[in-house]
């Protein structure tokens, strides 16, 4: 059965067409800003930007967001913990109203809760927008063109290439086990470990074979022969990319100035 995955969604939106490194730069800057300038307003603005970016990727329903069931409870937990255990600030409400009241929730607790959970949510959503709108291969080649040593760049490319293959093989091994009567409804941790070992061992054996084949293929094609290499593929900067990069630089300077001047 087709499952939703965290994967690139081909498209022609403004976000798709933005240069991968510019997108990466904006993600880095916004994430940094959320830590350097932790204000509720910035969190709200960044969340709005993240939602706009997700809309641009073509995401139209929360149901298309595979990690949401884990992400939202995590954010809620972060918020509740901060709201419950922060003691400073004015009490806004007491959750246990009887006998003079207990479990006070303060305005500072709510603010910090919003800041921490909102920051977490914003960074995850922004990263997700980057993943959905950027062909990983383009990102790897752009990084190499920008100076990342090609040996490291191809580690990323190889991982991208092998992931779907391992997923497919994992499904085959799982099917083969079901066909031989293996049941995956065990509750004992020991039994679960045995199941995991049986699932992973065939995949490991297969992976080792693939590593051998890949090593032969790469070395046979001169990989590592020289410290540098040429590239046929160019991930070009358009005028729009240069503008986005200029705004990125300006925003970075503003952040540094704000930080140096003591916020």
């Amino acid at each position, binding site marked *: 059965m087709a499952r939703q995955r965290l994967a690139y969604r081909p498209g022609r939106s403004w976000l798709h067409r933005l240069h991968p490194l510019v997108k990466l730069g904006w993600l880095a800057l916004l994430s940094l800003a959320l830590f350097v300038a932790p204000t509720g307003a910035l969190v709200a603005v960044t969340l709005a930007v993240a939602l706009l970016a997700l809309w641009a990727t073509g995401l139209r329903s929360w149901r298309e967001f595979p990690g949401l069931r884990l992400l939202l409870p995590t954010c809620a937990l972060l918020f509740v913990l901060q709201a419950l255990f922060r003691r400073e600030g004015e009490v806004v409400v007491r959750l246990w109203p009887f006998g003079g009241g207990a479990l006070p929730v303060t305005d500072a607790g709510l603010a910090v809760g919003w800041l921490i959970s909102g920051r977490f949510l914003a960074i995850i959503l922004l990263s997700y927008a980057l993943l959905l709108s950027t062909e990983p*291969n383009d990102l790897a080649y752009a990084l190499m063109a920008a100076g990342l040593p090609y040996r490291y760049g191809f580690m990323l490319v190889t991982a*991208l*290439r092998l992931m779907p293959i391992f997923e497919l093989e994992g499904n085959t091994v799982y099917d083969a086990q*079901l066909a031989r009567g293996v049941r995956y409804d065990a509750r004992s941790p020991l039994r679960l470990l045995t199941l995991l070992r049986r699932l992973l061992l065939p995949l490991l054996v297969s992976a080792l074979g693939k590593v051998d084949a890949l090593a032969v293929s790469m070395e*046979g094609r001169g990989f590592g022969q020289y410290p540098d290499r*040429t590239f046929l593929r160019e991930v070009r900067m358009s005028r729009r990319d240069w503008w986005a990069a200029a705004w990125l630089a300006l925003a970075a300077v503003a952040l540094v100035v704000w930080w140096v001047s003591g916020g």
Partner: protein
Amino acid sequence: MIDIRGLTWRFDGAPRPALQEITLRIEPGELVVISGPSGCGKSTLALAMGGYLFQQYHGQAEGSVEVGGLDVRQVPIYRAAEIVGLVQQNPENQFCTLNVMDELAFALENRRYPPAEIRQQIAWALEVVGAAHLRDRALATLSGGEKQKVAIASMLVGRPQVLILDEPTSSLDPAATRAVLEAIGRLRQEAGLTVVIIEHKTAYLEPLRPRRILMREGRIVPGGGAAALRAEVAWPPARPPAARAPGAEPLVRVEGLSFAHGEAPVLREVSLAVYPGELVAVMGRNGSGKTTLLRCLLGLAKPTAGEVRVAGRDVRRTPVSTLARDVGLIFQNPDHQIFADSVWAEAVFAPYNLGLADGADARAEALLADYGLLPYRDQHPYRLSYGEKRRLNLAAVLSYAPPVLLLDEVLVGQDPANAAFLLGQLTQLAAAGRAIVHVTHDPLTTLRYADRLVFLDDGRVIVDDAPEAAFARLEATGYQPYLPLYDLPAGEG
């Protein structure tokens, strides 16, 4: 072009040499096919010709290997690779990138060719293998045959003088096999290459008129041509289609089965019945829905429409663990279905899981003895050879004696002797009343051993008939590549 003299190679820790006193001379422009049983040293010899054996593996070597005047024992791999290109068995395992253009550019980029020259070389290589239309495709979207052509072109771009292909057609459907072989033919005509092919399915190569070399136990068999190879294999006799007992109920009944991956239909209104004692071959091009059909029969994929009943049970309403008691399933790759720590534990793994332990030990012991695996009873199954693992897969299913067997390309990668052994087992199992559904790409064994051929195209059954009649209909409707190319008088597959 290739001059090997007295080459002996022993892998570190191995009890005997993998190659023994190999002396072989191959002239420029020759096409040579090397065949022989699994583990005879064919792939090791290919690695030696490319220089990989001496640079990437640990062992002791004697003798000399010269390719294009270069002593490949002494030079780094990248130097040897400028003369020799090695295309490995599974193209999927040798791709280093995600797109056709990136893949073809990879070698030349590493050698610091300027982009303009890279583009020229890529255009030439794609033209030679007949794959110019694939240049802008992602590798993941290519069919098996297209991937193999791209793998060959990716070696060709560096303009080597020798190309070695390790089982280039092992998992391809007949149409893709022919397309790849045509591409290999063009390599000699248009690129003037010396080509060495490691292959079990040598009959398909006949139109290329190759020089044949047979290997056994690390040695080249003197005078080892096609006749020597045929003489070594005892193929089971062809069997006439089984007579169906009057009033017999089918063990597998499929009516109007449809299945879709999301929005994409994979099976469309498939109907078929398999009776006790029948061996039904399922053929069709890669991606036509054959494996999905098997998965539906065991409930691993739930039909989106239609009805599937196996051994009287509706697969939609029956858990897989219950269906599995009556249905044995074997996939293509033996390594994907070995889960236990010893050969014995593997053989009895399923019956104990399925609550069918009564008599399982005795059955497993007899099967291991019949399949020549009893001496390895306490060994880890991963130490077995490829052919032995395949036999263990079959023993591990037969140890609980399911009445229905589903087999997904179980002959792929098997040498002729092992393929003959497996086919002998299947015909015996059918004669004993089992219903067998065998997904295969091999028209010849289908013609000789199957009771019926079900041919799928784009998820639909377009032919379901006795093999001879089915092939006649396929021929009449334009499916020539799927017809048996040669007869098998004394045989090879």
